[in-house]
């Protein structure tokens, strides 16, 4: 109980910082705007494609409306892929100050001398960042919800839900790792840049995957952060992908905790 209360206290404080400063508003603004733009483009692309196919169907007299193209394949999947790129850029913004700022202000001393464990601090901060990120995703999904109110035959909701889940998990991996990087320095900007480089590294590991690559490269590619998004945006919840993301999150938080603890030992 005490643990939950302490985590909630840190969570509340971080949200207060996010929304008391421009960070949260800028992040929400940029994210929802890009979400809308990508949604618009993928939606028009989808409409073009279905129009073209319908036309072809009529020309060749296939009868009825011709073949149907998948909304998920043409719209949801590219949309979520694009947003994963946006998450790559926005995640450092959310995590860079988490610990760096506490160290610079000396408030880390307050946290460290209060009856609250390092784990509670790390978890509270991580959950605050992921909470804001979840809010961003939900705000963006309003765009997608419009399809339901306008489409004559409502699309399958499952790929949207699993895609959003995948997008959230992918971002949460960044946030966990970013929390760790933020413990390493008292300079936010340094933390931000280092985090971005680390996230980019996690991202590019996935590029090792191509049909000609051997077992080593295949293993490397498996560690790539986007590799595991593929199935989820298709609406397939494969436990191994979820477990992969959760492991990365746990690993990042573990590193953050070790770092916070060990810095006091070495100080």
């Amino acid at each position, binding site marked *: 109980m005490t643990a939950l209360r302490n985590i909630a206290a840190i969570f509340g404080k971080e949200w207060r*910082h996010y929304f008391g400063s421009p960070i949260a508003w800028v992040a929400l603004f940029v994210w929802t705007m890009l979400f809308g733009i990508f949604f618009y483009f993928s939606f028009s692309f989808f409409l073009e494609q279905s129009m073209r196919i319908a036309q072809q169907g009529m020309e060749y007299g296939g009868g009825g409306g011709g073949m149907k193209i998948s909304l998920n394949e043409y719209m949801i999947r590219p949309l979520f892929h694009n947003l994963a790129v946006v998450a790559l850029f926005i995640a450092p913004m959310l995590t860079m100050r988490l610990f760096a700022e506490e160290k610079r202000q*000396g408030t880390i001393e307050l946290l460290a001398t209060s009856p609250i464990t390092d784990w509670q601090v790390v978890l509270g901060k991580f959950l605050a960042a992921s909470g804001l990120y979840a809010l961003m995703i939900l705000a963006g999904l309003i765009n997608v919800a419009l399809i339901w109110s306008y489409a004559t035959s409502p699309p399958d909701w499952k790929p949207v839900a699993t895609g959003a889940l995948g997008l959230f998990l992918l971002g949460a991996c960044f946030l966990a790792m970013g929390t760790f990087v933020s413990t390493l320095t008292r300079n936010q900007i340094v933390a931000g840049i280092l985090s971005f480089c680390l996230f980019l590294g996690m991202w590019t590991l996935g590029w090792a995957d191509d049909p000609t690559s051997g077992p080593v490269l295949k293993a490397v590619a498996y560690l790539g952060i986007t590799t595991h998004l593929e199935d989820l945006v298709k609406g397939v919840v494969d436990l191994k992908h979820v477990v992969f993301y959760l492991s990365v999150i746990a690993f990042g938080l573990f590193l953050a905790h070790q770092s916070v603890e060990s810095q006091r030992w070495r100080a």
Partner: protein
Amino acid sequence: MIEVEGLTKRYGRTTAVDGVSFRVEKGEILGFLGPNGAGKTTTMRILTCYLPPTEGTARVAGYDVFAQPMEVKKRVGYLPETPPLYPDMEVAEYLEFCARIKGVEGKERANRVAYAIETCRVGDVRRKLIAKLSKGYRQRVGLAQAILHNPEVLILDEPTAGLDPKQIIETRELIRGLGGSHTVILSTHILPEVSMTCGRVVIINKGRVVAEDAPDNLVRRLKGAGTTRIEVRGAEASVLEAIRAVPGVIAAHPRGSHDGIVVADVEAEAGKDVRAELASAVVTKGHGLVGLQQLGMSLEEIFLHLTTADAEEAAPAA
């Protein structure tokens, strides 16, 4: 309430705190005195469980800082050298957050926050952003944070640093008021502060305790090591020669002469009263003794005495 034994902290090859031992009884206000870099802050950080000691033990309210840090943290209020404030929070909001992480429960919390605001007189800025506060208010908000959870022990690192004289007096009064119900350790390098607020003082230099006593006792015990002012009728050279010949005299500094009377300040060995010897030496030489007066050593002088290069010799005498 606080027992420190053989506390040592090394950073790599430098030793910040070297075998420090002292005790603080319940309700006492202990002054922790020393030049900058003496190891005051490090000792305080160990007592608040911010840093682990390299060697030695420290117990606060019966709990070991190393083995039971959570129990210690619940009982200690700590004001670091720079108050740990969030500039983007309002004062009341900040105290509310501090109360939460210090484990002050629901209903009690509002009472404690109100109490801390009242005690530290920050009521008129409670809705102000901390970033906009003056140094004095920041210090007070930091102090309010330290007393929020009604801790048995208060550890204050230079609580009056950077305040104006009026604020310093107010803060001292506040701390004196907290003593009795709380056990207080405060560090400072401002000496009058110690004699005004503390019941006992520990002087620390280069990581070691060089003296420990009530401020008055320290002054009394070291008085012998003070200076004696002597006024003699006679020729300056021969007077000084006579004075310097007295056993126990380290140096004689002429302070000028008027109407044929030589005034000199005589420095004697620690713990030695050389007045009688001085008088007879001067008289035997045929000079006229006009005045002889012991100049008391202020806490300042004691402090300098203990913490300058000859600290090693001075310590046993103290």
